[in-house]
Every structure is written in C-alpha cells, then in structure tokens.
C-alpha cells in the first residue's frame, strides 16, 4: 500500500512541479486554492520568491507531505494529534471559510428561510421529503413554502466541504451520526451528486425546489439563496464574516493538541454553525531545511499582511490571538 502511495504521490508531484522551479511547493485542499495563490502572487512581487501550490484534494495533500514530496501539505480535515506525532508533522489552521446551505425556491430571498441542524439532517436523510413539511414550517411560520418534493444536491467528489458539512450534521442529528457519519465521502441516503462547489452551485441555480451546500464564496458569487441557521445557542444567525469569526474565536484553540479543532457547531450567540478552518501540515525536521524556512516566512507574511486579500475572496482570516499561538508553535517545534 505504501508502495502504491509513494508511486502515486511521486507521479503527481513529478507531473505538477516539473513546469516550475519554485522554491516552495505545497499541495492539498482545493478549498483554499484561490487565497493561497493570491498570497503567493503578492509574496512573489514583494520578495521574488515563488510558491507552487497544487490543489489536488486534502487526502492527496496529506499523502504528499507524508511522502515528503512537498514542502507543505494542506488539508480541510485536520489530522489527530497521534497521527501528527507518528509522522513527525506540525499542523496549524491557516485560514477559515464557511459552508452555507443554499436553496432554489420561488419567492424566497437570501437569508429568509431558517433551518436548524436537525431539520437539515432530516432533509439529507430523506425523512423530510417536501418543502411544506411541518418541521420546516415550524421554523418558518411566516413563509409560504411550496408543497413540492425537495431535490437534495450534494458533492459527488470526496471533499473537505463534505467533511465539515457531515461533521456538523453528525453533531446536530443523532440519527445522521448513527446512519451516515462524518467523512470526505459518505454513504448518502438520498440526493444527486454534483462535482465540486461549482457543480453544486450550478445545479442549485438550475433546479427548482433544490437544496445544497457550498462554500460561502460560491454562494455569494453565484448569487444563490442562502439560508439562515439556528446555532448551538439557539439563535438565528445569517452567514456573515462576523458570524464566521465569532465561531473561530469561540473555539478553544489553546487547549487543542495539534490545533485539532473542527469549527462546526461552536458555542456563542453570534457563531455561524458550519464554519471550517483549513490546515497546513509541515515536517518538524524537514529534509530541505531552506525550503521549510522559506515556507514559514511565507505563512508569516500571509498572517501579517494577507488578511485583506483573504476577505476580498470571502475567506476569513484567523483571529490575532490564534496567530500568536501558531507563531509560538513554529518557533517551538519546527527545527531549522
């Protein structure tokens, strides 16, 4: 198995890096690709040092860093502390995003429809089949919902977005946890799969009475009708940068080994319930020390000067308190 992995990893990297002679190479999650490339572009202008990031998926990113074929790996699903220890890796959250349920319902404007985790779970379990179901009506007494069947849309490809979405459903619906669980690809009880965030966004845009979930940026750019959610504190929240940041700052980063915090369903009255961080993985003792140092410099730059760029692309920068913790981790754990 390791043999195959190494071959696959080596092949991917050989194919991806040969075109550039970049100092730093990274690979992994597709979700942060736009912001990583924007940061890399700005960093190159400022320092002349290039960075080559290949968005090949979180799972592949983990494999690449384990095989030591890249300077850093990137993943939406964090590794557990034991796994980090075993592979000699350091992990930290780099930037955050949020996942929003989106719908295509005639006459319903963005933010009007309110859903709870439990109802969302029942819709994705196929237990709630029609829009005028009593459970949805109870949350939305003022809305007139159609008596039509719900078309459930989800990702067809394995993805970090799905990981965080199913993690949220597992936390808010016992039935979901027992029957389906959390994963980058799961056994979906109902619905059709579309490829990528753009696939889901496109499908929702075209299909009447559909519901799906996408990264916030995709909902915004495609002008999709997002829903409001009821969070852990029982408050109705809209997907806004403030709500996402509230979820991040309410999370207990300091006590989590390896920053293993999944940001879904965090406490706090203002927290958006389906918020997610994306993580960076690096070796404590890298074989190429120069590249490793250069990568740290790049991440430092991104934390210090990249916030505005992140917000422009609808990502959420890490709160300063968390950045301080991360910088301490670097100096303590990464050997140069």
């Amino acid at each position, binding site marked *: 198995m390791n043999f*195959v992995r190494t071959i696959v990893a080596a092949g991917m990297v050989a194919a991806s890096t040969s075109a550039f002679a970049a100092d730093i190479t990274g690979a992994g999650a597709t979700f942060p690709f736009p912001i990583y490339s924007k940061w890399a572009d700005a960093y190159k202008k400022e320092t002349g040092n290039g960075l080559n990031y290949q968005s090949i998926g*979180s799972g592949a990113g983990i494999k690449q860093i384990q095989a030591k074929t890249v300077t850093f790996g990137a993943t939406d699903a964090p590794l557990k502390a034991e796994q980090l220890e075993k592979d000699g890796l350091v992990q930290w959250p780099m930037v955050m995003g949020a996942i929003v349920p989106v719908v295509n319902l005639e006459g319903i404007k963005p933010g009007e429809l309110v859903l709870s985790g439990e109802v969302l779970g029942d819709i994705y379990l196929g237990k709630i089949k029609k829009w005028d179901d009593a459970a949805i009506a109870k949350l939305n007494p003022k809305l007139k919902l159609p008596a039509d069947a719900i078309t459930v849309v989800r990702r*067809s490809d394995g993805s970090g977005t799905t990981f965080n979405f199913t993690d949220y459903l597992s936390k808010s619906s016992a039935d979901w946890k027992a029957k389906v669980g959390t994963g980058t690809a*799961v056994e979906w009880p109902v619905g059709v*799969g*579309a490829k990528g965030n753009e696939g889901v966004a496109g*499908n929702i845009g075209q*299909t009447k009475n559909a519901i799906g979930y996408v990264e916030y940026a995709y909902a915004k750019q495609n002008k999709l009708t997002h829903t409001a959610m009821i969070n852990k504190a029982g408050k109705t929240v809209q997907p806004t940068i403030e709500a996402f940041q509230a979820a991040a700052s309410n999370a207990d980063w300091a006590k989590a080994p390896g920053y293993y915090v999944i940001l879904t369903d965090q406490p706090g009255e203002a927290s958006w319930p389906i918020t997610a961080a994306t993580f960076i993985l690096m070796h404590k003792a890298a074989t190429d020390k120069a590249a490793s140092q250069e990568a740290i410099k790049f991440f430092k730059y991104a934390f210090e000067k990249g916030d505005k760029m992140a917000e422009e692309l609808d990502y959420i920068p890490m709160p300063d308190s968390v950045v301080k913790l991360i910088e301490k981790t670097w100096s303590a754990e990464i050997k140069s």
Partner: protein
Amino acid sequence: MAEMTVESDVMDAAGPYDRARALSAFKLGDVTFYWITRACAISVLLILGGIIISLIVGAWPAIREYGAAFLWTQRWAPSADPPVLGALGPIYGTLITSVIAMMIAIPVGLGIAIFLTEICPLWLRRPIGLAVELLAGIPSIIYGMWGFFVLGPFLANTFQPFMISIFDGVPVLGTVFAGPPSYLSLFNAALILAIMVLPFITSISVDVFKTVPPVLKEAAYGVGCTTWEVVRNVVIPYTRVGVIGGIMLALGRALGETMAVTFIIGNSFKIQSSIFAPGTTISAAIASEFAESDGLHQSGLILLGLLLFVLTFFVLAAARLMLMRLEKKAGN
C-alpha cells in the same frame, strides 16, 4: 550461363573475405532489427503485467477484507467504521450506461455510415464526414460541461417529463422511465456516451464499407436490388467483421469513459429501477473519490479499477471470440 560466370568472377575479384563480412553485417543488422522489434512487442506485455500487479498490490487490503462479496454488495459507506464497500452499484451503472449508449449509438452510427457511403451526394460527404471525426476530437471534459449545462437541463425539463408521462402506469417501462426528472442521471450519462462513441462506430464502418468491391454492389443493383437490399444483403454481410470490431472499440470506450460521465451521472451508489435516477460507474466513482480517500477506502477504489480492467478484458476477449466465429462461418 555465360553472364553468371562473369558475375561470379567479379565477385571473386572483390575477394572472398569482403563478401563474408558484408554478409555478416547484413545478418547482424537483421538480428538487431529482430531483437529491437521483439523487445518493443514484449514491453507491451511487461507494461500490462506491471499495471495488473500494481493494481493487485493496491487492491489487496480490500480483497482480503471483502472477498468475493465485494461484487454483490450494494452498500458503499466509506465513512462507516470499518468501511463497508461493495461494487454492485458501480458495476450496474457501468453496464447499464454502456448498454443504453450502444443501443443508441449502433443504429445511429451505422445509419450515418450507410448514408455517407451509399446515399450521400458527393458535396455533402465531406462536411458530414468531418463533423463526425470532429466529434471524436472533442475532449471528454467538454462533453461533461456541455452535458451539465445544456443537455442535462434540456433532458430534465423537456425529454424526461415527456417520457415519464407516456410510460406512466405501463408495467416495467413505467418503472424504467420513472420520475422525478433529474439533471444528473444514468440516462443523461448514457446519452453523452452515445454521442462520444458515435465516431468510433461511424468512421470504422465507413472505412470497411468502402472495401466492398463495387462489382458486388453493381451486380446486385443489376439484378434489380434496391439500395436497402444492397446494404442489407451485400454491404453488411461483407463487412460484418469490421463493423463489429468498430462496435467493440466503441463499447470499450463507453465502459471506461470517466470525465464526461463523472459530471452528469450524479454519483449515487444505490441501484434504482429508473434510468432517470442518479447512479455511478466504476470509473466515475474512482475519479470522484480517489483524491480524498485513504486506507481501506482507497484500496477499495483500486479494487474497483482492477474490476474495470477485468471487465474490459472479458468484453474484448468475447469480441475476439465472436469475430473468430464469424470469420469461420464466412469460410475465410
């Protein structure tokens, strides 16, 4: 006789030593050529063997875990602990989409080929021929996107509701063409596949139809046959082997096509009776889940790949057998 003596005298004058050397140089060249071509041919076997071995090595954990039950388990739950994986859904999807695609592509492809070679006015022959070959040149991802944005909505809004209302209440067909209409379904994927394999069937058929000796056709026309009768009784029987070869090539493409199918099949591992429901194929399942998979899940996906390999092998072997039988029957 005299000339030959003269010739051998000339050769002798050049010296017996040189002659032997020249001959051995020729021989050396020949031997080298023999071994180089032989090595090229054998390398195919080595590459194929390497692929099979690495697939088996990669799939081994899944083979050990699930055994033969992998083939008839329908559940695909990679996030369960331990993962429950079964290939029945993807196998069903692969076969059903290929069969539907062939059901559409064979008559249409042969129709185009017959029209082009027998009926088409000369000035129209080139544009149609070019268009068919252009179909083969379009990258599959373009088919996928077109399927997602254009064909899918058309089928879901127009074609599928029509079919569903026609067959509503009819036994069997009512279940095959059951709602709700969907942008992403087995049928949409099969239709895209049919368009994609069309050029394989058409170009090969056109080529083999052209090999029919004109005298055979002229003779048939001479005894008063219609165009239809000529095609049916002269052209098709004469070219049967080649046409079937083209169909098999198309079937191979349909079984393995990945990108376009991944876009519009809906990736559902459940087997549903309606062809308007989402499904998945072996290659689409691998393409969708491989990047984010690990451990047993990844091993299961590699095992799916091995299955596709075996499936394609059997289809091609069956095609060879069929061709051999036909050839024997034809008495060649």
